[in-house]
């Protein structure tokens, strides 16, 4: 499992650096690089988790139970609530920057990337937090 995590981490860093090298070191390039790294990390963790579950199932253990469902539910709730605030803040920022204030403007791609990264990040952070709390 540890080897899998190391491979995932290294692949994510390589992917992120490659994306930045292709898209430049501007804001979009950096956000895209982070996004690529996050996607690779999530995919790696997902695949690793599935493999762990398969092993557990073969050994006759449950892979999901009432506690995992509770953790997932709490993390989803936190992700949904904080995600909503962030999306609203982004939209109001964009609205204000567009019409009233001389603030730097985001384009829709940057906003979508930031919003989705935040949603995923807060969800996984909540999962890790509740795994120790619940």
């Amino acid at each position, binding site marked *: 499992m540890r080897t899998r995590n190391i491979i995932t981490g290294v692949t994510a860093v390589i992917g992120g650096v490659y994306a930045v090298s292709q898209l430049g070191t501007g804001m979009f390039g950096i956000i895209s690089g982070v996004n690529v790294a996050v996607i690779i990390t999530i995919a790696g963790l997902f695949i690793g988790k599935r493999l762990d579950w398969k092993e*557990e199932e073969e050994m*006759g*253990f*449950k*892979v*999901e*139970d*009432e*506690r*995992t469902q509770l953790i997932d539910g709490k993390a989803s709730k936190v992700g949904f609530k904080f995600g909503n605030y962030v999306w609203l803040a982004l939209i109001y920022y964009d609205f204000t920057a567009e019409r009233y204030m001389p603030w730097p403007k985001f384009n829709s791609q940057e906003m979508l990337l930031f919003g989705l990264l935040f949603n995923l990040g807060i969800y996984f952070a909540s999962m890790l937090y509740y795994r120790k709390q*619940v």
Partner: protein
Amino acid sequence: MRTIIKMLRARDGLTQADLAKKAGVRRETISFVENGEYNPSLLLAVRIARTFGEPVEEIFLYEDEELAL
């Protein structure tokens, strides 16, 4: 909440993994329940109690303050 699951496991020669299989939950769930860090559902509490052949209230011990409304 405190439990006497560890003592009962030792009595019956069961590991956490054995108990997890019998109760139909993950191994880490048993660990959390055993250490009083997770309040199990009534169903899981009854399953654990049946595994040991003991009443639920003798396995899961609550302080008076925890039971107070």
